[in-house]
Protein backbone atom coordinates (compact mmCIF):
# COMPACT_ATOMS: atom_id res chain seq x y z
CA UNK A 1 0.00 0.00 0.00
CA UNK A 2 1.22 3.50 -0.86
CA UNK A 3 1.35 5.98 2.01
CA UNK A 4 1.06 9.71 1.35
CA UNK A 5 1.33 12.42 4.01
CA UNK A 6 -0.02 15.91 3.41
CA UNK A 7 1.04 18.61 5.84
CA UNK A 8 -1.60 21.35 6.16
CA UNK A 9 -5.32 20.60 6.12
CA UNK A 10 -6.33 23.88 4.49
CA UNK A 11 -8.06 23.92 1.10
CA UNK A 12 -4.84 23.08 -0.75
CA UNK A 13 -4.11 20.04 1.39
CA UNK A 14 -7.73 18.88 1.29
CA UNK A 15 -8.07 19.28 -2.50
CA UNK A 16 -4.78 17.43 -2.93
CA UNK A 17 -6.13 14.57 -0.80
CA UNK A 18 -9.36 14.60 -2.80
CA UNK A 19 -7.55 14.38 -6.14
CA UNK A 20 -5.12 11.73 -4.85
CA UNK A 21 -7.95 9.61 -3.44
CA UNK A 22 -9.46 9.62 -6.94
CA UNK A 23 -6.24 8.99 -8.84
CA UNK A 24 -4.85 6.40 -6.41
CA UNK A 25 -7.85 4.71 -4.79
CA UNK A 26 -5.60 2.23 -2.99
CA UNK A 27 -3.35 4.84 -1.42
CA UNK A 28 -3.59 5.63 2.27
CA UNK A 29 -3.51 9.38 2.90
CA UNK A 30 -2.67 11.13 6.18
CA UNK A 31 -3.56 14.82 6.57
CA UNK A 32 -1.54 16.55 9.28
CA UNK A 33 -2.27 19.99 10.79
CA UNK A 34 -0.84 21.94 13.68
CA UNK A 35 -4.34 22.89 14.79
CA UNK A 36 -6.66 20.37 16.43
CA UNK A 37 -9.20 21.20 13.69
CA UNK A 38 -9.01 20.92 9.90
CA UNK A 39 -9.72 23.31 6.99
CA UNK A 40 -7.14 26.10 7.50
CA UNK A 41 -8.18 29.48 6.13
CA UNK A 42 -11.61 28.22 5.11
CA UNK A 43 -12.35 28.19 8.81
CA UNK A 44 -9.98 30.97 9.91
CA UNK A 45 -9.65 33.33 6.92
CA UNK A 46 -12.88 33.31 4.90
CA UNK A 47 -15.12 35.86 6.56
CA UNK A 48 -17.56 34.70 9.25
CA UNK A 49 -20.46 36.20 7.29
CA UNK A 50 -19.57 34.22 4.14
CA UNK A 51 -20.86 30.82 5.18
CA UNK A 52 -21.68 29.86 1.59
CA UNK A 53 -17.97 29.98 0.70
CA UNK A 54 -17.17 27.79 3.69
CA UNK A 55 -19.60 25.15 2.38
CA UNK A 56 -16.78 23.46 0.38
CA UNK A 57 -16.01 21.83 3.73
CA UNK A 58 -18.82 19.39 2.94
CA UNK A 59 -16.67 17.95 0.16
CA UNK A 60 -13.74 17.47 2.49
CA UNK A 61 -15.82 15.71 5.17
CA UNK A 62 -16.26 12.95 2.59
CA UNK A 63 -12.53 12.35 2.52
CA UNK A 64 -12.50 11.30 6.13
CA UNK A 65 -15.78 9.39 6.11
CA UNK A 66 -15.63 7.63 2.72
CA UNK A 67 -12.00 7.48 1.67
CA UNK A 68 -8.94 6.12 3.38
CA UNK A 69 -7.90 9.58 4.60
CA UNK A 70 -6.99 10.13 8.26
CA UNK A 71 -6.64 13.41 10.15
CA UNK A 72 -3.72 14.02 12.51
CA UNK A 73 -4.48 17.37 14.16
CA UNK A 74 -2.49 19.11 16.87
CA UNK A 75 0.71 17.98 15.14
CA UNK A 76 3.24 20.63 14.07
CA UNK A 77 5.78 19.71 11.43
CA UNK A 78 9.14 20.84 12.76
CA UNK A 79 8.15 20.43 16.42
CA UNK A 80 6.21 17.19 16.93
CA UNK A 81 7.52 15.58 13.78
CA UNK A 82 10.46 16.23 11.47
CA UNK A 83 10.32 16.30 7.72
CA UNK A 84 12.99 13.58 7.65
CA UNK A 85 10.81 11.27 9.77
CA UNK A 86 7.83 11.91 7.59
CA UNK A 87 9.76 11.26 4.38
CA UNK A 88 11.06 8.05 5.91
CA UNK A 89 7.59 6.80 6.84
CA UNK A 90 5.64 7.84 3.70
CA UNK A 91 6.28 7.32 -0.02
CA UNK A 92 5.26 10.90 -0.77
CA UNK A 93 5.02 14.04 1.38
CA UNK A 94 3.12 17.14 0.28
CA UNK A 95 3.70 20.47 2.01
CA UNK A 96 0.54 22.60 2.00
CA UNK A 97 1.28 24.76 5.00
CA UNK A 98 0.19 28.11 3.54
CA UNK A 99 1.55 31.54 4.48
CA UNK A 100 0.38 33.36 7.58
CA UNK A 101 2.59 36.35 8.40
CA UNK A 102 1.19 39.75 7.50
CA UNK A 103 3.31 41.64 5.01
CA UNK A 104 4.69 44.79 6.58
CA UNK A 105 4.33 48.29 5.18
CA UNK A 106 7.96 49.07 5.95
CA UNK A 107 7.29 52.63 7.17
CA UNK A 108 7.85 54.55 10.39
CA UNK A 109 5.24 54.14 13.11
CA UNK A 110 4.20 50.68 11.98
CA UNK A 111 4.80 49.18 15.44
CA UNK A 112 2.62 51.69 17.29
CA UNK A 113 -0.27 50.19 19.24
CA UNK A 114 -3.36 50.39 17.07
CA UNK A 115 -1.65 49.21 13.88
CA UNK A 116 -2.80 45.65 13.15
CA UNK A 117 -2.26 43.28 10.24
CA UNK A 118 -5.22 41.69 8.48
CA UNK A 119 -4.10 38.18 9.46
CA UNK A 120 -4.14 39.11 13.13
CA UNK A 121 -7.53 40.81 12.80
CA UNK A 122 -9.20 38.05 10.82
CA UNK A 123 -7.83 35.34 13.13
CA UNK A 124 -9.30 37.29 16.06
CA UNK A 125 -12.68 37.68 14.34
CA UNK A 126 -12.68 34.03 13.27
CA UNK A 127 -11.93 32.72 16.79
CA UNK A 128 -8.56 31.22 15.82
CA UNK A 129 -7.37 29.25 18.87
CA UNK A 130 -6.10 31.63 21.55
CA UNK A 131 -6.04 34.63 19.20
CA UNK A 132 -6.92 37.96 20.75
CA UNK A 133 -9.92 39.95 19.65
CA UNK A 134 -8.58 43.08 17.92
CA UNK A 135 -8.93 46.43 19.71
CA UNK A 136 -10.64 48.79 17.30
CA UNK A 137 -11.21 52.55 17.67
CA UNK A 138 -13.90 54.80 16.15
CA UNK A 139 -11.83 55.94 13.14
CA UNK A 140 -10.21 53.20 11.10
CA UNK A 141 -7.85 53.39 8.12
CA UNK A 142 -7.52 50.21 6.06
CA UNK A 143 -4.45 50.08 3.82
CA UNK A 144 -4.86 47.72 0.88
CA UNK A 145 -7.06 47.22 -2.16
CA UNK A 146 -7.89 43.53 -2.25
CA UNK A 147 -10.75 41.35 -1.10
CA UNK A 148 -9.37 41.03 2.43
CA UNK A 149 -9.62 44.83 2.78
CA UNK A 150 -13.27 44.55 1.72
CA UNK A 151 -13.86 41.78 4.27
CA UNK A 152 -12.42 44.00 7.01
CA UNK A 153 -14.46 47.02 6.09
CA UNK A 154 -17.67 45.02 5.72
CA UNK A 155 -17.32 43.50 9.18
CA UNK A 156 -16.55 46.93 10.66
CA UNK A 157 -19.51 48.51 8.88
CA UNK A 158 -22.18 45.93 9.64
CA UNK A 159 -25.00 46.44 12.11
CA UNK A 160 -25.52 43.62 14.67
CA UNK A 161 -28.51 42.13 12.82
CA UNK A 162 -26.41 41.81 9.67
CA UNK A 163 -24.41 39.05 11.32
CA UNK A 164 -27.45 36.75 11.42
CA UNK A 165 -26.56 33.37 9.97
CA UNK A 166 -22.81 33.97 10.38
CA UNK A 167 -20.46 32.35 12.88
CA UNK A 168 -19.21 35.72 14.18
CA UNK A 169 -18.91 35.34 17.95
CA UNK A 170 -21.49 37.42 19.84
CA UNK A 171 -18.59 38.79 21.96
CA UNK A 172 -16.85 40.02 18.82
CA UNK A 173 -20.07 41.72 17.75
CA UNK A 174 -20.42 43.36 21.15
CA UNK A 175 -16.79 44.53 21.06
CA UNK A 176 -17.39 46.16 17.68
CA UNK A 177 -20.52 47.89 18.93
CA UNK A 178 -18.53 49.19 21.91
CA UNK A 179 -15.81 50.43 19.55
CA UNK A 180 -18.40 52.68 17.92
CA UNK A 181 -16.79 52.83 14.50
CA UNK A 182 -17.90 56.01 12.73
CA UNK A 183 -15.50 56.34 9.82
CA UNK A 184 -13.54 53.87 7.68
CA UNK A 185 -11.06 55.00 5.03
CA UNK A 186 -9.82 52.37 2.57
CA UNK A 187 -6.66 53.47 0.80
CA UNK A 188 -4.90 51.83 -2.13
CA UNK A 189 -1.52 52.52 -3.60
CA UNK A 190 -2.52 52.13 -7.23
CA UNK A 191 -5.35 53.60 -9.23
CA UNK A 192 -8.87 52.23 -8.97
CA UNK A 193 -8.49 50.42 -12.29
CA UNK A 194 -5.68 48.34 -10.78
CA UNK A 195 -7.48 47.55 -7.52
CA UNK A 196 -7.76 43.81 -6.87
CA UNK A 197 -11.31 43.95 -5.53
CA UNK A 198 -13.76 41.38 -6.82
CA UNK A 199 -16.65 43.47 -8.26
CA UNK A 200 -19.18 41.16 -6.65
CA UNK A 201 -17.62 41.84 -3.22
CA UNK A 202 -17.97 45.59 -3.80
CA UNK A 203 -21.59 45.23 -4.82
CA UNK A 204 -22.26 43.39 -1.58
CA UNK A 205 -21.31 46.62 0.24
CA UNK A 206 -24.20 48.33 -1.50
CA UNK A 207 -26.51 46.39 0.82
CA UNK A 208 -25.00 47.55 4.12
CA UNK A 209 -27.78 48.85 6.34
CA UNK A 210 -25.84 51.43 8.33
CA UNK A 211 -22.96 52.62 6.18
CA UNK A 212 -22.80 55.33 3.55
CA UNK A 213 -20.24 54.74 0.80
CA UNK A 214 -18.07 57.45 -0.77
CA UNK A 215 -15.67 56.73 -3.61
CA UNK A 216 -12.92 59.23 -4.43
CA UNK A 217 -10.98 59.27 -7.65
CA UNK A 218 -12.35 56.14 -9.35
CA UNK A 219 -12.10 57.26 -12.95
CA UNK A 220 -11.48 55.08 -15.96
CA UNK A 221 -13.07 51.90 -17.21
CA UNK A 222 -13.45 48.31 -16.18
CA UNK A 223 -15.60 46.12 -13.99
CA UNK A 224 -14.09 47.28 -10.70
CA UNK A 225 -14.63 50.92 -11.55
CA UNK A 226 -18.19 50.22 -12.67
CA UNK A 227 -18.87 48.49 -9.37
CA UNK A 228 -17.26 51.34 -7.40
CA UNK A 229 -19.35 53.91 -9.25
CA UNK A 230 -22.47 51.84 -8.67
CA UNK A 231 -21.99 51.77 -4.89
CA UNK A 232 -20.93 55.44 -4.61
CA UNK A 233 -24.63 56.36 -4.34
CA UNK A 234 -25.28 54.12 -1.33
CA UNK A 235 -26.49 56.51 1.40
CA UNK A 236 -28.93 54.66 3.69
CA UNK A 237 -31.04 56.90 5.90
CA UNK A 238 -29.67 57.27 9.42
CA UNK A 239 -26.28 55.78 8.48
CA UNK A 240 -23.93 55.76 11.48
CA UNK A 241 -20.73 54.96 9.58
CA UNK A 242 -19.03 56.58 6.61
CA UNK A 243 -16.82 54.53 4.33
CA UNK A 244 -14.40 56.37 2.02
CA UNK A 245 -12.40 54.76 -0.79
CA UNK A 246 -9.20 56.49 -1.93
CA UNK A 247 -6.93 55.42 -4.79
CA UNK A 248 -3.35 56.18 -5.79
CA UNK A 249 -1.92 56.97 -2.34
CA UNK A 250 1.32 55.50 -0.99
CA UNK A 251 1.62 55.31 2.81
CA UNK A 252 4.51 57.45 4.03
CA UNK A 253 4.39 57.17 7.80
CA UNK A 254 2.13 56.48 10.72
CA UNK A 255 2.02 59.25 13.28
CA UNK A 256 1.40 59.00 17.00
CA UNK A 257 3.12 59.13 20.38
CA UNK A 258 1.71 56.35 22.58
CA UNK A 259 -0.56 54.94 19.89
CA UNK A 260 -1.55 55.63 16.31
CA UNK A 261 -3.03 59.08 15.67
CA UNK A 262 -2.89 59.49 11.88
CA UNK A 263 -1.51 58.11 8.62
CA UNK A 264 0.23 60.25 6.03
CA UNK A 265 0.13 59.29 2.37
CA UNK A 266 1.71 60.84 -0.70
CA UNK A 267 0.28 60.66 -4.20
CA UNK A 268 1.67 57.59 -5.94
CA UNK A 269 2.24 59.52 -9.14
CA UNK A 270 2.56 63.25 -8.83
CA UNK A 271 2.14 65.87 -6.21
CA UNK A 272 -0.12 65.83 -3.22
CA UNK A 273 -0.57 64.46 0.27
CA UNK A 274 -3.37 62.83 2.21
CA UNK A 275 -3.48 63.02 6.01
CA UNK A 276 -6.02 60.78 7.72
CA UNK A 277 -6.44 61.11 11.51
CA UNK A 278 -7.43 57.75 13.00
CA UNK A 279 -7.38 55.45 16.05
CA UNK A 280 -6.75 52.18 14.24
CA UNK A 281 -4.77 51.19 11.14
CA UNK A 282 -5.49 47.82 9.57
CA UNK A 283 -3.01 46.67 6.94
CA UNK A 284 -4.32 44.31 4.27
CA UNK A 285 -1.43 44.19 1.83
CA UNK A 286 -0.90 40.46 1.68
CA UNK A 287 1.11 37.79 3.43
CA UNK A 288 4.76 36.93 3.67
CA UNK A 289 7.03 34.03 4.39
CA UNK A 290 9.24 31.44 2.85
CA UNK A 291 7.81 29.59 -0.13
CA UNK A 292 8.87 26.24 -1.53
CA UNK A 293 11.66 25.79 -4.07
CA UNK A 294 9.47 23.61 -6.24
CA UNK A 295 9.26 23.10 -9.99
CA UNK A 296 6.16 23.95 -12.06
CA UNK A 297 4.46 20.70 -11.05
CA UNK A 298 5.11 21.31 -7.38
CA UNK A 299 7.95 18.80 -7.03
CA UNK A 300 10.73 19.79 -4.60
CA UNK A 301 12.72 16.54 -4.52
CA UNK A 302 12.05 12.85 -4.88
CA UNK A 303 8.90 12.08 -2.91
CA UNK A 304 8.53 15.68 -1.72
CA UNK A 305 6.02 18.16 -3.14
CA UNK A 306 4.46 21.54 -2.38
CA UNK A 307 1.11 23.06 -3.22
CA UNK A 308 -1.15 26.01 -2.45
CA UNK A 309 0.03 29.27 -0.99
CA UNK A 310 3.20 27.60 0.26
CA UNK A 311 4.14 26.79 -3.34
CA UNK A 312 2.85 29.81 -5.24
CA UNK A 313 2.94 32.58 -2.65
CA UNK A 314 -0.03 34.26 -0.98
CA UNK A 315 -2.08 34.82 -4.12
CA UNK A 316 -5.19 33.18 -5.41
CA UNK A 317 -8.49 32.07 -4.02
CA UNK A 318 -9.94 28.66 -3.30
CA UNK A 319 -10.57 27.75 -6.99
CA UNK A 320 -6.93 28.43 -7.89
CA UNK A 321 -5.75 26.24 -5.03
CA UNK A 322 -8.02 23.48 -6.28
CA UNK A 323 -6.50 23.63 -9.75
CA UNK A 324 -3.00 23.70 -8.27
CA UNK A 325 -3.78 20.76 -5.98
CA UNK A 326 -5.14 18.72 -8.90
CA UNK A 327 -1.97 19.37 -10.92
CA UNK A 328 0.31 18.37 -8.04
CA UNK A 329 -1.78 15.27 -7.37
CA UNK A 330 -1.50 14.23 -11.04
CA UNK A 331 2.27 14.58 -10.84
CA UNK A 332 2.44 12.54 -7.63
CA UNK A 333 0.27 9.81 -9.11
CA UNK A 334 2.55 9.61 -12.14
CA UNK A 335 5.71 9.53 -10.02
CA UNK A 336 4.34 6.90 -7.65
CA UNK A 337 3.36 4.59 -10.49
CA UNK A 338 6.99 3.41 -10.60
CA UNK A 339 7.76 3.65 -6.89
CA UNK A 340 7.90 0.72 -4.52
CA UNK A 341 5.58 1.01 -1.55
CA UNK A 342 6.75 -0.67 1.60
CA UNK A 343 6.90 2.18 4.11
CA UNK A 344 5.01 2.02 7.43
CA UNK A 345 2.88 5.12 6.75
CA UNK A 346 -0.01 5.66 9.15
CA UNK A 347 1.24 3.11 11.66
CA UNK A 348 4.34 5.24 12.25
CA UNK A 349 2.25 8.35 12.88
CA UNK A 350 -0.17 6.60 15.20
CA UNK A 351 2.70 5.17 17.23
CA UNK A 352 4.77 8.34 17.34
CA UNK A 353 2.07 10.96 17.91
CA UNK A 354 -0.02 10.08 20.97
CA UNK A 355 -1.18 13.70 21.33
CA UNK A 356 -2.68 13.84 17.84
CA UNK A 357 -6.37 14.68 17.42
CA UNK A 358 -8.08 12.42 14.91
CA UNK A 359 -11.17 13.05 12.80
CA UNK A 360 -13.38 11.70 15.58
CA UNK A 361 -11.86 14.24 17.95
CA UNK A 362 -12.66 17.03 15.50
CA UNK A 363 -16.20 15.66 15.18
CA UNK A 364 -16.65 16.06 18.93
CA UNK A 365 -15.41 19.66 18.75
CA UNK A 366 -17.71 20.27 15.79
CA UNK A 367 -20.70 18.80 17.62
CA UNK A 368 -19.99 20.99 20.67
CA UNK A 369 -19.79 24.07 18.44
CA UNK A 370 -23.11 23.26 16.83
CA UNK A 371 -24.78 22.42 20.15
CA UNK A 372 -23.68 25.74 21.70
CA UNK A 373 -24.85 27.75 18.71
CA UNK A 374 -27.12 30.76 19.43
CA UNK A 375 -30.30 30.86 17.30
CA UNK A 376 -29.03 33.67 15.05
CA UNK A 377 -25.68 32.04 14.33
CA UNK A 378 -24.40 29.14 12.18
CA UNK A 379 -22.11 27.82 14.93
CA UNK A 380 -20.29 28.93 18.05
CA UNK A 381 -16.58 28.28 17.61
CA UNK A 382 -14.45 26.95 20.45
CA UNK A 383 -11.78 29.63 20.79
CA UNK A 384 -8.99 28.00 22.79
CA UNK A 385 -6.75 25.07 22.02
CA UNK A 386 -7.07 23.77 25.59
CA UNK A 387 -10.85 23.57 25.34
CA UNK A 388 -10.60 21.94 21.91
CA UNK A 389 -8.25 19.29 23.22
CA UNK A 390 -10.49 18.57 26.22
CA UNK A 391 -13.49 18.08 23.94
CA UNK A 392 -11.53 16.03 21.43
CA UNK A 393 -10.37 13.64 24.12
CA UNK A 394 -13.73 13.06 25.74
CA UNK A 395 -14.71 9.45 25.27
CA UNK A 396 -17.65 8.73 23.01
CA UNK A 397 -19.86 7.25 25.71
CA UNK A 398 -19.93 10.29 27.93
Amino acid at each position, binding site marked *: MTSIAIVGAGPSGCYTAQALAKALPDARIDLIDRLPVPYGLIRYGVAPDH*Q*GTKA*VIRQFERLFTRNDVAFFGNVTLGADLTLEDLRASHEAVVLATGLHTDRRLGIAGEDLPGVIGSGVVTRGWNDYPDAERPQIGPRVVIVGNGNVAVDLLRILAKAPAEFDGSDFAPESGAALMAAGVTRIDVVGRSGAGMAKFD*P*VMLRELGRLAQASLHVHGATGEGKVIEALQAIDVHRPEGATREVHFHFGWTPEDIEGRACVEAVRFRASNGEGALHLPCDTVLTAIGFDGETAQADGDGRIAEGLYATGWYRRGPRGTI*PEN*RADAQAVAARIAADLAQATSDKPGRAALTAGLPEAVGYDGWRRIDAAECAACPPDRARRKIATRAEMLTLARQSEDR
Partner: protein
Amino acid sequence: MQIHILYGTETGNAEMLAEDISDHLSEHAPEVTNLEDFDPADFDTGTFYLVVTSTYGDGELPASAQPFAEKMASQAPDLSGIRFAVFGMGDSEYPETFNFGGKRLEEMLTGAGAELVGERVTHDASGSDMADDLALPWVDALLAEGVA
Protein backbone atom coordinates in the same frame (compact mmCIF):
# COMPACT_ATOMS: atom_id res chain seq x y z
CA MET B 1 -33.00 5.83 -22.31
CA GLN B 2 -29.46 6.68 -21.35
CA ILE B 3 -28.79 9.35 -18.67
CA HIS B 4 -25.85 11.72 -18.94
CA ILE B 5 -24.91 14.09 -16.13
CA LEU B 6 -23.02 17.22 -17.21
CA TYR B 7 -21.50 19.47 -14.57
CA GLY B 8 -19.89 22.89 -14.43
CA THR B 9 -17.86 23.71 -11.33
CA GLU B 10 -15.19 25.93 -9.87
CA THR B 11 -14.64 24.72 -6.30
CA GLY B 12 -15.99 21.20 -6.73
CA ASN B 13 -19.46 21.37 -5.14
CA ALA B 14 -21.26 20.69 -8.44
CA GLU B 15 -18.83 17.88 -9.24
CA MET B 16 -19.53 16.17 -5.93
CA LEU B 17 -23.26 16.51 -6.49
CA ALA B 18 -22.93 15.07 -10.02
CA GLU B 19 -21.15 12.05 -8.56
CA ASP B 20 -23.79 11.64 -5.86
CA ILE B 21 -26.56 11.74 -8.45
CA SER B 22 -24.65 9.19 -10.48
CA ASP B 23 -24.35 6.86 -7.45
CA HIS B 24 -28.05 7.35 -6.72
CA LEU B 25 -28.95 6.38 -10.29
CA SER B 26 -26.45 3.55 -10.50
CA GLU B 27 -28.96 1.11 -11.98
CA HIS B 28 -29.25 3.46 -14.99
CA ALA B 29 -25.43 3.52 -15.29
CA PRO B 30 -25.33 7.24 -16.08
CA GLU B 31 -22.35 8.88 -17.71
CA VAL B 32 -20.79 11.83 -15.83
CA THR B 33 -18.82 14.50 -17.71
CA ASN B 34 -17.27 17.80 -16.77
CA LEU B 35 -18.67 20.42 -19.19
CA GLU B 36 -15.11 21.43 -20.08
CA ASP B 37 -14.72 17.96 -21.65
CA PHE B 38 -18.06 17.93 -23.47
CA ASP B 39 -18.59 18.93 -27.08
CA PRO B 40 -22.07 20.14 -28.15
CA ALA B 41 -21.70 17.97 -31.27
CA ASP B 42 -22.01 14.94 -28.97
CA PHE B 43 -25.56 15.72 -27.80
CA ASP B 44 -27.72 12.71 -28.60
CA THR B 45 -31.51 12.51 -28.78
CA GLY B 46 -31.47 9.05 -27.21
CA THR B 47 -30.06 10.47 -23.97
CA PHE B 48 -31.59 12.51 -21.17
CA TYR B 49 -29.25 15.21 -19.81
CA LEU B 50 -29.04 16.29 -16.19
CA VAL B 51 -27.12 19.57 -16.07
CA VAL B 52 -25.60 20.66 -12.73
CA THR B 53 -23.78 23.99 -12.57
CA SER B 54 -22.66 26.63 -10.11
CA THR B 55 -22.38 30.41 -10.61
CA TYR B 56 -19.31 32.63 -10.39
CA GLY B 57 -18.07 36.17 -10.74
CA ASP B 58 -20.92 38.51 -11.37
CA GLY B 59 -23.46 35.87 -12.31
CA GLU B 60 -21.21 34.08 -14.79
CA LEU B 61 -20.69 30.42 -15.52
CA PRO B 62 -18.08 28.62 -13.44
CA ALA B 63 -14.67 28.10 -15.08
CA SER B 64 -15.33 24.52 -16.14
CA ALA B 65 -18.53 25.47 -18.03
CA GLN B 66 -16.97 28.32 -19.98
CA PRO B 67 -15.30 26.28 -22.74
CA PHE B 68 -18.69 24.63 -23.36
CA ALA B 69 -20.40 28.02 -23.61
CA GLU B 70 -17.77 29.15 -26.13
CA LYS B 71 -18.31 26.02 -28.24
CA MET B 72 -22.09 26.53 -28.11
CA ALA B 73 -21.58 30.08 -29.39
CA SER B 74 -19.18 29.14 -32.18
CA GLN B 75 -20.89 25.93 -33.32
CA ALA B 76 -24.49 27.18 -32.94
CA PRO B 77 -25.76 23.58 -32.94
CA ASP B 78 -29.38 22.62 -33.57
CA LEU B 79 -30.44 20.81 -30.40
CA SER B 80 -34.05 20.10 -31.27
CA GLY B 81 -35.07 16.74 -29.90
CA ILE B 82 -32.61 17.03 -26.99
CA ARG B 83 -34.22 16.94 -23.54
CA PHE B 84 -32.58 18.14 -20.33
CA ALA B 85 -33.16 19.31 -16.77
CA VAL B 86 -31.10 21.84 -14.80
CA PHE B 87 -29.94 21.90 -11.19
CA GLY B 88 -28.33 25.26 -10.44
CA MET B 89 -26.04 26.03 -7.53
CA GLY B 90 -25.50 29.49 -6.13
CA ASP B 91 -25.44 31.56 -3.02
CA SER B 92 -28.05 34.05 -1.84
CA GLU B 93 -25.17 36.24 -0.63
CA TYR B 94 -25.20 37.31 -4.28
CA PRO B 95 -28.91 38.21 -4.60
CA GLU B 96 -28.70 40.17 -7.89
CA THR B 97 -27.19 37.25 -9.74
CA PHE B 98 -28.50 34.35 -7.67
CA ASN B 99 -28.18 31.09 -9.63
CA PHE B 100 -27.49 32.82 -12.93
CA GLY B 101 -25.16 29.98 -13.96
CA GLY B 102 -28.04 27.50 -14.24
CA LYS B 103 -30.21 30.14 -15.82
CA ARG B 104 -27.58 30.88 -18.46
CA LEU B 105 -27.16 27.21 -19.38
CA GLU B 106 -30.91 26.73 -19.52
CA GLU B 107 -31.28 29.70 -21.87
CA MET B 108 -28.34 28.58 -23.96
CA LEU B 109 -29.78 25.10 -24.47
CA THR B 110 -33.41 26.10 -25.00
CA GLY B 111 -32.16 28.85 -27.34
CA ALA B 112 -30.58 26.10 -29.46
CA GLY B 113 -33.87 24.20 -29.60
CA ALA B 114 -33.48 21.76 -26.69
CA GLU B 115 -36.42 21.11 -24.38
CA LEU B 116 -36.25 21.84 -20.63
CA VAL B 117 -38.07 19.18 -18.60
CA GLY B 118 -39.48 20.33 -15.28
CA GLU B 119 -38.38 23.51 -13.56
CA ARG B 120 -34.82 24.55 -12.96
CA VAL B 121 -33.88 23.92 -9.31
CA THR B 122 -31.84 26.51 -7.38
CA HIS B 123 -29.60 25.48 -4.51
CA ASP B 124 -28.38 28.12 -2.04
CA ALA B 125 -24.94 27.53 -0.47
CA SER B 126 -25.93 29.86 2.38
CA GLY B 127 -29.22 28.05 2.95
CA SER B 128 -29.80 25.10 5.24
CA ASP B 129 -30.57 22.50 2.54
CA MET B 130 -27.80 20.17 1.48
CA ALA B 131 -27.58 19.97 -2.30
CA ASP B 132 -28.21 16.21 -2.19
CA ASP B 133 -31.40 16.65 -0.20
CA LEU B 134 -32.82 18.76 -3.02
CA ALA B 135 -31.24 16.96 -5.95
CA LEU B 136 -31.98 13.31 -5.25
CA PRO B 137 -35.76 13.80 -4.85
CA TRP B 138 -35.61 15.97 -7.98
CA VAL B 139 -34.06 13.22 -10.10
CA ASP B 140 -36.46 10.67 -8.59
CA ALA B 141 -39.37 12.87 -9.64
CA LEU B 142 -37.96 13.26 -13.14
CA LEU B 143 -37.61 9.50 -13.45
CA ALA B 144 -41.12 8.97 -12.10
CA GLU B 145 -42.33 11.20 -14.93
CA GLY B 146 -40.63 8.79 -17.27
CA VAL B 147 -37.82 10.91 -18.69
CA ALA B 148 -35.52 7.92 -18.91
